[in-house]
């Protein structure tokens, strides 16, 4: 499946051409987004709400010299499109010049990214209810309460401009996340999965089994003081924190002196070793577990980019203007990334066996920046923290607040496992980036206070 039937490549091109034909601006760009969004929520072991929504919209960006403005609408009849084009032209003429505006890109070649899964596209309300029932049955049999979400989107995006550029990308994404709690509220366990392809996502029964095991395991967790601990971060927990690092890889902020990646005295830290040499972070739209869009909103091709290689900062994300100003090639960050480490193949269980004393963390939540100078963040553990003693999980402990930097964490690396695609967004829906990360063992992780929340 290369095209989505809801908006095929041909239909997207035709819609773009309708808009471009209406344009009287010196230059014009059109972005099209169309999709169908289906979700089913459940709580207390039963479906609560669900939704299926179809939408399609265009954004028209008109330019007169360096003056530019964008107007978006989902009214796609002739009158609606004409109004959007006319309004964008009127606003653009009124706008002051934007000295950073780059010329429109001419036609480009894009990588083929097969991100559309038929199984995901076919995940309708009935199939989602079946997935829910598989999870709630497991939870109910165990005498526990499950709350979760099955969410899938199928859609397409296109970009075209008056310089002859056209790009089209269709994709599906699906997420199933659930939290299982004991009826007395003293135990809570989480499990989740995300992928483009429903058949490659973890099955609902297996997910529920994992969450059930954690809910039972965390019941009446023991009290443990805050402090610096060796931690084993499950892939989701690692993904929660590494996303923060990936999204801060911005060249301009670094060059302007307002980023962790700024060099004292001016410039940025590209070429410096910033984390443990076992860490390599790469974005690649064609990675079979990422499958992100092969172009940006303005149609700039997105290829494989190495951000950190063997611990050395190799690239920072650069838009066209800033790259041109610095005399380098633009390096767009397209949203997804993978942390890889040569030869790392250990499973989570094998990593745990190597830890004499430490804490196993399921996931983090409510993560917020506290110090941009050090990339310092605070947040909370939730849904399962377990004490590891002599290579084995010996029992659950309370939750903690952490104050920690993902950069410091990657400098305190003890071991790296085998990477996998995770659902790393705090919201547990399809809104987050595509993230492939391994479980990590990290020493001296700072937990600064206890959270009595379960």
């Amino acid at each position, binding site marked *: 499946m290369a095209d989505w039937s809801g908006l095929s490549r041909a239909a997207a091109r035709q819609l773009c051409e309708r808009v471009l034909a209406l344009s009287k601006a010196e230059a014009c760009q059109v972005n099209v987004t169309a999709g169908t*969004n289906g*979700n*089913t929520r459940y*709580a207390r*072991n*039963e479906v609560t*709400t*669900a939704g*299926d*929504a*179809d939408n399609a*919209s265009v954004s028209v960006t008109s330019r007169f010299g360096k003056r530019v*403005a*964008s*107007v*978006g609408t*989902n009214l796609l009849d002739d009158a609606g499109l004409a109004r959007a084009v006319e*309004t964008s032209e009127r606003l*653009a003429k009124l*706008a002051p010049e934007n000295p950073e505006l780059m010329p429109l890109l001419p036609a480009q070649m894009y990588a083929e990214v097969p991100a559309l899964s038929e199984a995901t596209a076919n995940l309708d*309300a*009935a199939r989602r209810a079946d997935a829910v029932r598989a999870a709630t049955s497991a939870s109910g049999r165990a005498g526990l*309460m499950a*709350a*979760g*979400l099955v*969410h899938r989107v199928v859609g397409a995006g296109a970009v075209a401009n008056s310089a002859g550029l056209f790009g089209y990308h269709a994709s599906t994404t699906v997420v199933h*996340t*659930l939290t299982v709690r004991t009826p007395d509220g003293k135990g*809570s366990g*989480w499990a989740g999965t995300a992928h483009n392809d429903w058949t490659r996502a973890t099955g609902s029964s297996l997910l529920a089994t994992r969450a059930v095991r954690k809910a039972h395991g965390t019941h009446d967790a023991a009290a443990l003081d805050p402090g610096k601990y060796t931690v084993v971060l499950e892939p989701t927990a690692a993904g929660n924190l590494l996303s923060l690092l990936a999204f801060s890889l911005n060249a301009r902020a670094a060059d*302007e*002196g*307002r980023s962790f990646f*700024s060099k*004292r*005295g001016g410039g940025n830290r590209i070429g410096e070793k910033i984390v443990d040499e076992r860490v390599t972070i790469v974005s690649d739209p064609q990675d079979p577990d990422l499958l992100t869009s092969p172009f940006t909103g303005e149609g700039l091709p997105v290829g494989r980019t190495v951000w950190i290689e063997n611990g050395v900062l190799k690239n920072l994300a650069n838009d066209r203007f800033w790259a041109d100003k610095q005399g380098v090639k633009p390096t767009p960050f397209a949203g997804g990334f993978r942390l890889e480490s040569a030869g790392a193949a250990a499973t989570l269980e094998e990593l745990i066996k190597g830890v004499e004393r430490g804490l196993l963390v399921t996931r983090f939540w409510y993560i917020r920046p*506290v*110090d*941009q*100078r*050090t990339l*310092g963040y*605070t*947040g*909370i553990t*939730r849904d399962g923290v377990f004490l590891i003693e002599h290579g084995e999980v010996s029992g659950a402990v309370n*939750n903690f*607040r952490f*104050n920690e930097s993902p950069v410091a964490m990657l400098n305190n690396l003890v071991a790296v496992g085998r990477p996998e695609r995770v659902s790393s967004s*705090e*919201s547990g*829906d*399809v809104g987050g980036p595509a993230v492939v990360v391994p479980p990590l063992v990290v020493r001296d992780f*700072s937990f*600064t*206070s206890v*959270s009595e*929340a*379960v």
Partner: protein
Amino acid sequence: MDRRKFVQTAAGAVATSSLRLKLPQADASVKDLCMRALNAAKTAGASYADVRVGRTRLQSVSTREQQITNLSDTETYGFGIRVLAQGAWGFAASRDLSASEIDRVARLAVAQAKANRRAMQHPITLAPTPSVTDGHWRSPIETDPFDITIEEKVGLLLRANAEALKVAGARFVNSSLAFVKDAKTYASTDDIFTVQEVYRCFPQMNVTAVDSTRGLFETRNSAEVAPMGLGWEWVLKSDLPGNAQRWAEEAVQKLTAKSVEPGRYDLILEPHHLFLTIHESIAHPTELDRALGYEANYAGTSFLAPPQQVLGKFRYGPEFMNIQGDRSQPGSLSACGWDDDGVVPETYLIIKNGIVVDYQTTRDQVAILTPLTGRQRSHGTSYAESWADVQFQRMPNVSLLPGERDLKLDDLMTATDNGIYIVGRGSYSIDQQRYNFQFGGQVFYEVKGGKITGMLKDVAYQARTPDFWNSMDMIGGKSSYLMNGTFSDGKGQPSQSNAVSHGCPPARFKAVNVLNTGRDRG
């Protein structure tokens, strides 16, 4: 005011406003579409249905230094049909308002409800609500921001930026204006038909000071400028150009401010900071769906559970602490005539004299609390982000009411020997049951012997919610009460955004644990 009297008053206000207003979505053709949707749902087997036709316009203008970075104007139009069939909810939505699509979407919503029935145990029941034949409501704006030219908007921002950049050491400045107009027509099979036009606006700026030789940078944003449910008049009143130099000077001052010594301090929190602490540590835990486990997978649960052990029993704070829920404060972000269940929102106390007495509710939750509260009606807190999203329980404005004595900020300051005065919202994080939180701020001042003695930086306070609120020992009076709010509060799965205000006076909290966020992480 008792419930019956309040309802009568609200209904009277609605009748008056409907004579004055002519709203675009009151058009007969939109009403016809709504009626068609309800009929199609009933024909397909729904026992209850409601429909929202929404048309939302969002305009945003962004700048940095002396240039524009974004100018966009977006409109989205569509409808969503929610049904009950065999006791289960179903919801479907589309941007295509043709008759055939309305019929298809209504059938899809009913089919979905029937599919959901297989994974349900308890049928939904709805609390009764009075019928509304033709209700109209509009935000109390003076000037429609969409009538103001782009030149004027850009000009105001660039003037503000220029003022900030006059300050030595202020290197970068970003500023923006965002305007929302949310036109919504709602109809339900419970004989409700309403048309509303809700406006929101948010002026913002952020100044960055850099000391590149020492590798330092600090920011100061316009934290005292609240997002509001008002029009262009609020942008003028906010006066970004008039405040920009002060914010820039404070960003520069922060570069050399004293790094805080960790320890226990008395905190004086002014309203533009305290509103967010109220939002996170009071408004969220008093959401009934959280307390019952419906949001366990993302937003979380609540330490205020189960309700039978909380209502009338749990002491949240001191005797003088009263927390109000409402959707009626003029200019507040959650103000409306009817919620997305078609209910007139109530003004009511959630915490009375320090004790929790109620939760936030929607029509499908009322029956759960009736045995405990005797209440038969919803508080009116149903909300959906857009026509494409299903409505569910979202917080109203949740506010800390002022104290009986009309104390001012200066009175709190004078009475404090060893404290920190915190201005504006900063970093914020709280656990999934709303116990453990950590808050930063925009600007921090050391208070010694009743006076401000200097600026501090790297301050965050960390506490446990009930301990924190029970440490409140002073509170400002009516004349020091202010509102601020959040333009995008996330909850639900898929996550939906809600805009909500919180009012409060300044307040003092005793011996709160303060961390240094810059020195080390341990």
